[in-house]
């Protein structure tokens, strides 16, 4: 566990490497299923090779280093290597086969320019292209092939100067044009405070083993599935998100093989696992070592827990292990956590009052009149939450409003964007943009204030998708909306777009072409596979009184018309 005297994250790794060098830091499962055990000493040595390579290309304290890599050991070492130098690390979302590489690298360039990054670390295949794109920026491009091998007994010299705890350790951001502009800057102090508080909240102990497939460019994967276990000396078993989504049984196999005790998952993963894992895949597998599956990063649904329990209960899954948490990068990670060892309970509230009066009144467990909401638990030590009304007033229990938080593990700010930071704060409280209510300190999330869409735990900003539609042939610029719709069997949101086209936009075939073009351009730039696209006539979309297109009003109209069609 991190000593209370540690000022920085790097101190705990260095300490571990010096005092307990053969201890297992992590097991890395590669794409072929092969496993490699990495000791703390090895981890430390590998991270040092990256610090050296970065220093040689001129990276210094406080410089920003962007990692444009895939799920790989190199990513892990590069991240720490940058921090060893006192530089700021930031992991860029991974390139997948759905994204167009040229567009992807263009997005890298945009981020580099906005954030004034000093260096980018990437794969040899990208180095030339990226170097050309960044030629005028002065940003260095380091390829992983240029990082020298680990040296035995590396000199202990200047790689761990005494950094102040206030120093920014790394940036986290969501994807998309909007997300990439809001780099959440977190200091060593904040991250350490989060780790100390959260480990208490989940009673992290020396027998724990964390099993994860989560991507590291997202807060849950980065903190729960990497930084926290590493800093706390708890073994981490890490596999690729790309492999997992195509073969979810690998998570269950890893739990069994390594006697996993903890795993964090976005809600859709419960549905995906239940649906896609066959009984023959589970033969001989035992999940009883798991003391908690923690549902986090998108709304938690009672049904998702139920299908998961129905499927895996026979294989040792303990119902009490179905836990939940509410988290965000702006609080480093966890804001609230339900006490581990008890199943996250359901609050049944009257549906009409929920929707009309914005109040959560308990009612009988009957879907005809009530909505079941799963608890996200209580705030972690050092974090306070409250519910705020339209005029900024704090609301009492069971009244629904915007969740606000303040803590000792908050962001230092949005990197280089003080105006965005100012917009999100009020009197020292961070306004989350999520709606919900509190009952005796226990948090329930009911929805979102703005129009953010969350798919598979990932934030999607509708304005980013609309911007793509605006430049798609056949669609009237400025006349489109994107919104999310919950899909019960998916356990997550689907993304729908409605776009206006000229009234004489041609026959069905021509309209289908516009639709296909839109789908293609959206997936290439944002990875989102639109669940539905409706091309409508001019003036179909509803505007607000101020003349802006209302996403929620059009969502309602779409749902109404959908039911009428059936």
């Amino acid at each position, binding site marked *: 566990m991190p000593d209370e005297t540690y000022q920085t994250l790097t101190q705990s790794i260095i300490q571990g490497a010096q005092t307990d060098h053969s201890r297992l830091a992590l097991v890395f499962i590669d*794409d072929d299923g092969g496993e490699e055990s990495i000791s703390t000493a090895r981890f430390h040595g590998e991270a040092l090779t990256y610090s050296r390579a970065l220093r040689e290309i001129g990276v210094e304290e406080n410089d920003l280093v962007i990692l444009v890599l895939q799920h790989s050991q190199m990513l892990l070492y590069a991240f720490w290597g940058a921090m060893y130098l006192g530089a700021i690390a930031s992991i860029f979302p991974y390139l*997948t*086969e*759905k994204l167009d590489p040229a567009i992807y690298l263009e997005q890298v360039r945009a981020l580099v320019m906005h954030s004034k990054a000093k260096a980018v670390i990437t794969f040899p295949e990208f180095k030339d292209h990226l170097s050309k794109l960044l030629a005028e920026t002065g940003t260095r491009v380091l390829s992983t092939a240029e990082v020298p091998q680990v040296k035995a007994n590396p000199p202990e010299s200047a790689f761990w100067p005494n950094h102040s705890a206030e120093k920014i350790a790394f940036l986290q951001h969501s994807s998309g044009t909007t997300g990439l502009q809001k780099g959440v800057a977190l200091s060593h102090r904040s991250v350490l405070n989060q780790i100390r508080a959260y480990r208490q909240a989940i009673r992290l102990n020396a027998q724990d083993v964390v099993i994860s497939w989560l991507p590291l460019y997202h807060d849950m994967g980065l903190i729960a599935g990497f930084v926290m276990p590493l800093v706390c000396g708890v073994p981490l078993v890490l596999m690729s998100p790309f*492999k997992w*989504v*195509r*073969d*979810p049984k690998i998570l269950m196999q890893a739990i069994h093989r390594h006697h996993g005790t903890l795993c964090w998952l976005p809600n*859709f993963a419960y549905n*995906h696992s239940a*649906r*896609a894992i*066959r009984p023959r895949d589970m033969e001989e597998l035992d999940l009883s070592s798991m003391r908690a599956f923690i549902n986090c990063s998108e709304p938690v649904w009672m049904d998702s827990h139920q299908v998961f329990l129905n499927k895996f209960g026979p294989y040792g899954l303990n119902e009490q292990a179905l836990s939940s948490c509410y988290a965000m990068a702006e609080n480093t990670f966890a804001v609230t956590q339900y006490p581990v060892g008890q199943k996250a309970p359901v609050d049944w509230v009257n549906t009409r009052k929920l929707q009309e009066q914005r109040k959560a009144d308990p009612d009988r467990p009957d879907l005809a009149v009530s909505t079941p909401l799963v608890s996200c638990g209580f705030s972690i030590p050092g974090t306070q939450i409250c519910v705020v009304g339209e005029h900024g007033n704090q609301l009492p229990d069971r009244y629904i409003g915007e969740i606000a938080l303040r803590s000792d593990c908050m962001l230092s700010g949005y990197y280089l964007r003080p105006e965005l930071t100012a917009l999100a704060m009020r009197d020292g409280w961070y306004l989350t943009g999520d709606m919900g209510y509190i009952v005796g300190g226990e948090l329930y999330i009911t929805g979102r204030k703005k129009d953010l869409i969350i798919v*598979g735990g990932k934030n999607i900003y509708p304005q980013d998708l609309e911007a793509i539609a605006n430049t798609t042939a056949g669609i009237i610029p400025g006349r489109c909306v994107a919104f999310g719709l919950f899909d019960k069997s*998916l356990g997550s949101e689907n993304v729908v777009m409605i776009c206006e086209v000229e009234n004489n936009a041609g026959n069905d*075939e021509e309209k*289908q072409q516009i639709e*296909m073009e839109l*789908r*293609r351009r*959206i*997936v*290439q730039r944002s990875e*989102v*596979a*639109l*669940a*539905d696209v409706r091309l409508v006539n001019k003036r179909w979309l509803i505007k607000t009184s101020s003349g802006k297109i209302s996403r929620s009003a059009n969502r309602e109209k779409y749902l109404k018309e959908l039911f009428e069609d059936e």
Partner: protein
Amino acid sequence: MSDIETELSEYILTQIVKRPKHQLDKDTPLISSGLIDSFHLVDLAIFIEEKFGVRIDDSELNADTFDTVPQLSALIRQRQG
């Protein structure tokens, strides 16, 4: 279109894309067109196994192995032996 292609198109259009009246071109790239999300690839593999008795390994669920209905259909026919 062969039987396999018809069955595949129907499954994809009704269960995944949820637009039964659409036309799926034989050249339509399923993955890179944004029609099929990563979450649905496993569903497609399960359907193929149950319907045609052919196993598609997770490592094959990508645009290199198949990206169009005819390609996927050829793979299935090959494995049916």
